[in-house]
Structure formats: C-alpha cells, structure tokens
C-alpha cells in the first residue's frame, strides 16, 4: 500500500513537529512547515494527499493558504486545525466550508483525530 503524504502547516513549530511525528508513527509520510511560505514551497515540490492547516498564521491566514493549496493540489484533502473559537462558523461565513474536509479544534484527542484522517 502506498503511504499517504501529509503536510502540517502550523506556526506553532513544536505542535507541528509532534503532530508530524505522531502521523509518521501511524504510517504516514508526514512533513511539517512552520510558516505559509515554507509550506507552499513544500507543497509545490511533492504531491501531498492531506494538508493540515492552522487557521491563523503570521503572513497568511489559513484561508489564503487554503486557496493557494487548492490551486496547486486540487485533489488533496485539507483539514483546518485551530484553537480559535467559532472556527467552523467563520469558515462557513467565508464560504470555504465546503472545500475543507474537516475542522479540528485544538486541543484534541490524538486517536479521535486519527479516525478522521483514516476515514478519508
């Protein structure tokens, strides 16, 4: 079976690091990037199946990043991971809710999170 590729883009570097390690341990090929520029650069080089995006980052919001990624890799699945209150409502307001495969609120239970990813 071909391992799925996942890219975590989160400006909380330690979180991205731990999440990527967790995913590798679960059998995925996972990378992490701590800012949107690095994330987009990585996204251009490899074909990622799944993107896990933080909503708010220094230069670009998760929304801009989401649009950029959807342009580069239209067939990939994108999850938004955020600690921001009311994130689902915000995505709905920005009419991008349909484009995301799921919204995960921080903090989360790793096994529950894995179920969502596996369900793809």
């Amino acid at each position, binding site marked *: 079976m071909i391992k799925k590729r996942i890219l975590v883009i989160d400006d909380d570097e330690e979180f991205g690091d731990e999440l990527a390690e967790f995913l590798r341990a679960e059998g995925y090929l996972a990378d992490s990037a701590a800012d949107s520029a690095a994330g987009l650069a990585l996204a251009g080089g490899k074909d990622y199946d799944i993107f896990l995006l933080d909503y708010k980052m220094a230069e670009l919001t998760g929304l801009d990043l989401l649009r950029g990624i959807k342009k580069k890799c239209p067939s990939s699945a994108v999850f938004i991971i955020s*600690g*921001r209150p009311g994130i689902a409502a915000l995505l709905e307001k920005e009419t991008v809710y349909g484009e995301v495969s799921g919204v995960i609120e*921080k*903090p989360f239970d790793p096994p529950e999170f894995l179920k969502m990813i596996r369900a793809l």
Partner: protein
Amino acid sequence: MREDDLNILLVDDNPADSRLVCEMLKECGGRVGKVERAARLDDALKMLWDDSFDVVLLDVNLPDSGGLEGLEKISGRYPETAVILLTGVDDESLAVQALRQNACDYLVKGRIDPGLLGRSIRYAIGRKQAEDVLRRDKETLEALVTARTRELLSAQKELESARRLSDIGTLAATVAHELRNPLAAIAMAAFNIKRKAADPLLDRHFRNIDKKIGESNQIINNLLFYSRLKPPQYELIDLKGLLEECVNTARTISAGNNRVALELHVPKQLSVEADPLQMREVCSNILGNACDAVSAVRGGRISVRAEQAGSSVAVRFEDNGPGIPAELTPKIFEPFFTTKAKGTGLGLYVCKQILDLHGGGIAVGAAKGRGTAVTVTLPGKRER
C-alpha cells in the same frame, strides 16, 4: 354657601376691630363664605390644623406674638394659605419685609374699606392659585427629571456592563486561541512520549496530563460562554449519544487513583431540540462538578438518568459526594462563585444561562442519602 366660597380666618385680639373687618367682609363683594375668628396666634394655629382656610387676615400685634412671628409660623406650615397682614400702624419697612416673607398684602386698619379688602383678597387668592400651579408644575418636572435620570443611569450601567463583557469577550477569545495552541502541542507531545515509552507504569502520569488539559480547556470554554453567550443553534439531538459521549469523557478523566462508578440510564430515542455545543458544555460542567465532588470519597458514584417528563425532558445527575451546604445553594448560580480551590466559578452560571436561553431550567438539591442532585429540564419540542 357655594363650594368655591372662601373660608376666611380673622385673627385679631381687638373685638371692635374684629367686628369691623367682619362687617366689611360681608360688603366686600368677594366670594366670602365661612368667616371664623381667633384672638390669639395659638388658637389660630389650632384652627388651621383642624380646618382648611383659603385666607388668613392676621393682625400684626397679638397677645402671644408680635411683628412677623405669626406670618412666619402660618406661611411656614401652610404655604398654600394666603396671609394678609393687618396693622394699626403704617410701617413701610415692616410692610416690605412682610411681603418679602410671603405675605400677600399689608393693610393698615384705619384705611381699609370693603372694596380694598375685597380686591386684596382676590389678588391673594389669585396669587396662591398661580403659586399652586407653579408648584405642581415643578413637582411634575422634578418627577420627570428624576425618572429620566434613573433611566439614563440604568442605560449607562447596561452600556458599561456590555462594554465590560465585550472586553472580556475579546480577551477570552484571545486567551482561548493563545492557550489552545500550546495545549494541543502538550497533548500531542504527551501522546508521542507515551507511545515511545510503551511503559504501563507511566500511564497514570499521562492520564493526569490529559485530565489537566481537559480541565484547562473547560476553563477556556466557560470563559468564552460567559462572555459571548450566543442564541442557541437548534438541532434535533439524540440525547443518548450526547450523554454517552460526555459520560465517557468524564470516565476517562475520573479514571485516576480513585475509582468512580459512573452509570448512565437513557431510554433509546430520547431526543431534544437544542444547541449541541451548549448542551455538551452544560453536561460536561455538571459532570465535572460531580467528579470533583466524589474525588475524595471512597466508593464514589455518579449516576445520570434521563427521561421524558410530560412534554419536556429531564436529566438528573446524582453524586454521593459531600453535598452542598444549604446556606450556599442560593449562591451557586452566581458568576465567579466557587468553593473549590481551583475553578472559575463560571460553570453553573453558564449552565443556567444556556438553559434559560433554551427555555429550560436547572435545579440543584440534595441527592437521596447524601450528595448532590442536579436536574436539568429541556423542552422536548421547541415552540415556534
């Protein structure tokens, strides 16, 4: 005697003068009704106390008072009564002083005739009526100003509280975001260590970390709900599923050193129309309290029982903890009230707000035997 005839009190100790003025009153052409007489100021004050007079004709020199003393006493106590001073001597300075002290007129006995007396009485009555209208207008205005001021103050208070809440809301949202990120990283890191260590001896420590992360997240949620309580987003919720989820979370949390028996009794197909996020907040707060309550109890037990009660649904949470002292029960729904060493004191307050918004209710009492029982009621179907 017609109703609007004037009641007149004549105060004069000289019988001849008194009789003369009485005669003149009969001829003065005014609406003179009852005329009573007094020879002393004390008697006059008693009569004024017992009866109401429109006009007092007051001699300046009485056996028990002299000068303007009588005027002061009468107009001080009965400001709506017109006082006309009578005097034997024409004293310009006394006259000016008397008018300044609210006398309506100042008449010199030797120079009065019925016409003058009648005119003086008419003017005095006119003046008192005008004063009366002014006084009533003033009272109305004062009442109006007081009412408006009160409205303004309460509006200002509301505004302040709204501003404070909105500040807290912004703060809470920022804090929520800033804290949830590190919490997520901590949770993730703990999970990775657990996997690497693969040591059952460490499990207890990881459970503790998860528990504390859960508690921190609950504090954040309570702050958010406290400051930004939104109208419920109604959905048809399967109550069994929601309660199972909350009870399972509580089970994980309470699976520490102390064994707690958690039981759930919900009939299948029990549904309510409610906001799922808010209902989860209510249940996790109540269950969190119950877990805290039984944490120091051997054989801690928590039971959750949901049932249809008429058209509404009731969920009863019972624990066998130490219970809530009766004198504290009135305070438990106040914001920031807590008896715990940790905790924001917002949990039950937020629960009550949420249930109020849903048209439901929450009641806290003693459980059978000992402990606390919290009953949440929700309307089964929402009225539209």
